[in-house]
């Protein structure tokens, strides 16, 4: 075998190595701080936006599932809405917890080239004061339907 061909094979094998966890880390979001209200109404919600873009090799349609590593504090909700110009059906704002929940269905490869991730954090007065806390949102792909 020619040395150049062998070099190419070695490069391919090296490129095949994946990270130990196999998970891609997206940029951190926040802090999302609830700090205002109109008298007589619940505190104002806050939102934060993140973006995701990737070229995926997909076979058929997929669903995007999301869940948290721990439930949110009482009387607060963290919801997420994944949208893209084409290639899938967003299920709108979905409240996140430790149960995997569908966020997008019928997703094809074009969906993942331009995804907007919109987080909304809400707290009622019953939540009280909450110091800065974090949750890890895990997104996974699953077959659809």
């Amino acid at each position: 075998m020619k040395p150049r061909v062998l070099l190419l094979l070695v490069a391919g094998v090296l490129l095949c190595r994946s990270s130990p966890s196999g998970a891609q880390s997206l940029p951190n979001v926040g802090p999302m701080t609830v700090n205002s209200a109109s008298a007589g109404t619940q505190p104002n919600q806050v939102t934060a936006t993140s973006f995701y873009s990737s070229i995926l090799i997909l076979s058929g349609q997929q669903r995007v599932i999301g869940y948290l590593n721990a439930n949110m504090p009482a009387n607060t909700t963290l919801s997420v809405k994944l949208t893209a110009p084409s290639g899938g059906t967003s299920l709108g704002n979905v409240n996140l917890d430790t149960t995997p929940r569908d966020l997008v269905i019928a997703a094809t490869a074009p969906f993942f080239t331009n995804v907007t991730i919109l987080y909304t954090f809400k707290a009622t007065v019953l939540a009280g004061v909450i110091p800065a806390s974090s949750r890890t949102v895990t997104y996974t792909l699953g077959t659809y339907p």
Partner: protein
Amino acid sequence: MSYFARRRCLVAIALFGAALPLALQAQTATQTVTFAVNAINQVAFVGSPSLTITTAIAGSAPMSVTDATASWAVTTNQSTAKITASIPTAMPAGLTLSVNLGAPAGATSALFKPLAVASVDLVTNVTKVAQGGMSVTYKLDATAAAGVITSSTRVVTYTITGGV
């Protein structure tokens, strides 16, 4: 298979090998979201009440008048806060302006309290509540010694404080 055909095949295998992990890695992604809730304390009052004493029963002090056209609202995510009120200048001699605030759920109203330059507690134990449309009743009392007083105004300042 010719040399060039073999080379094209190997290049294709290598490229596929390079792309495959991208697909596999992208099947799970994580993102850390940080959030917080600060202390929130808001009160609002609406209305422009007006009170005029005009009558008396012979032998008695002039009759008090009340106005309940105003209302108030509160939002707090803290506990045991209180609502206080003050006026910037004292009332004329012989004249007393009092106010009674309806209490939100779980709180306690002090009922009618005379307003003064010093703050006075009107509602206590205001705890984690968002409520509006609560009553505000003003009362004006005058003694005969107050005499005739031309139209005057006072701005009442309400404050929510003391929550923990």
